[in-house]
């Protein structure tokens, strides 16, 4: 179920109480780097997901051209 905070749409997720307490402690000790557990969770997820999704800088056609050159040079 979605709702809005400061105009931005948000959704609720559930995590274990134990993990939540650890996160809350981390936020308290972060000396203001994170203002809330929500902010910390959002930061960590962004980091993890951005590592997984790589923006391709070439089209399928360009990739084929690259492979052609690699074949011609004997790399493939």
């Amino acid at each position, binding site marked *: 179920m979605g709702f809005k905070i400061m105009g931005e749409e948000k959704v609720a997720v559930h995590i274990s109480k134990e993990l939540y307490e650890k996160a809350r402690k981390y936020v308290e000790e972060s000396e203001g780097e994170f203002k809330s557990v929500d902010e910390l969770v959002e930061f960590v997820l962004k980091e993890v997901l*951005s*590592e997984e999704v790589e923006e391709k*800088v070439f089209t399928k056609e360009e990739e084929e051209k690259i*492979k052609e050159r*690699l074949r011609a040079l004997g*790399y*493939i």
Partner: protein
Amino acid sequence: MVSKPHGGKLVNRVVTGRRREYLLEEAKELRKVSVSESLAADVSNIAHGVYSPLEGFMVYNDYYHVLYDMRLANDVPWTIPIVLDVSREEILGLKEGDDIAISFKNTMLAIMEIEDIYKWDKREFCKKVFKTVDVRHPGVSKTMHRKDLLIGGSIYLLNDVPEPFERYRLWPVETRVLFEAKRWRTIAGFQTRNVPHRGHEYVQKAALTFVDGLFVNPLVGWKKTRDYKDEVIVRAYEALIENYYPKDSVVFSVLRMEMRYAGPREAILHAIVRKNFGCTHFIVGRDHAGVGDFYGPYEAWDIFNEFPDLGIIPMFIREAFYCMKCGGFVNEKICPHEEEYRVKVSGTKLRKMILSKEKPPEYMMRPEVVEVILNFERPFVE
């Protein structure tokens, strides 16, 4: 999965098609700045994403942060400023917002939008980057002879400098496709400016034991005197790989980029560059990118502790030697025997033997590699 490009996106500043034709015409009308071979290589490296996330030569804000914090202004790790030096005369009358044409010899390389013009303190640069202002250091000596102003801004590449080793020139976009085609998920990058001896082979194969593929990527371009010439390095590696490496486990490609001899800071730059090529691991040598005794033997290892967010895994593999008791190549961590049984492969000793046309023994260098090197009348930079 190949490594994510440094800073998140692989830069592409290469202009093609009709836009290139248009910009080539426009470049004729612009003030021209002629650059050295090393800077021409930097222009290509920026445009082809070797230096991602840089899109041009550094503006003051990035220059300052890299010099003092070893990070770009946006906090992405970066250790050596990539800068374009010009004389006052060359840019007389130009201001921020103007365009210039960058050329090398008769080749129009690129157009650059000037975003920043600033002075640099070359001594301070040397102190930070090379940790010395001693002019016996080749990087210091070269920096002190550079021009007095720096200009920063994005570039648009129109032409690459012709590459004598075109058959071995691959750009990051190509190695990324290649590594994926080979289904390599882990790739160790190996940086070198030397011909391979048995110690190098040991280090590379030790790394290869743990990863899917090895990317041997020697630097070609300006080097100090008494280093091996580029062609000697390329031919020596051809002989080694042909005879001693499994074909599906190694990719050999050259990178035209200046050796700066900046030790630990350069080790980080070398790792970043290989990350952009798609490497997940990077082999860091003892006294990596060092020269003389300007850096401690393991300084280039220690600096990696300062970059937990580098995004490429350093592999610290100890220097190898031949142990007569072990009966093979080992390192100090795995060999229990005394010094008297250990035979070290010294680059200096090898150089002396090669200069006097003497064949180094097989435990130092593979005979096929020796033969290739000795076929060169003058194998060293003079």
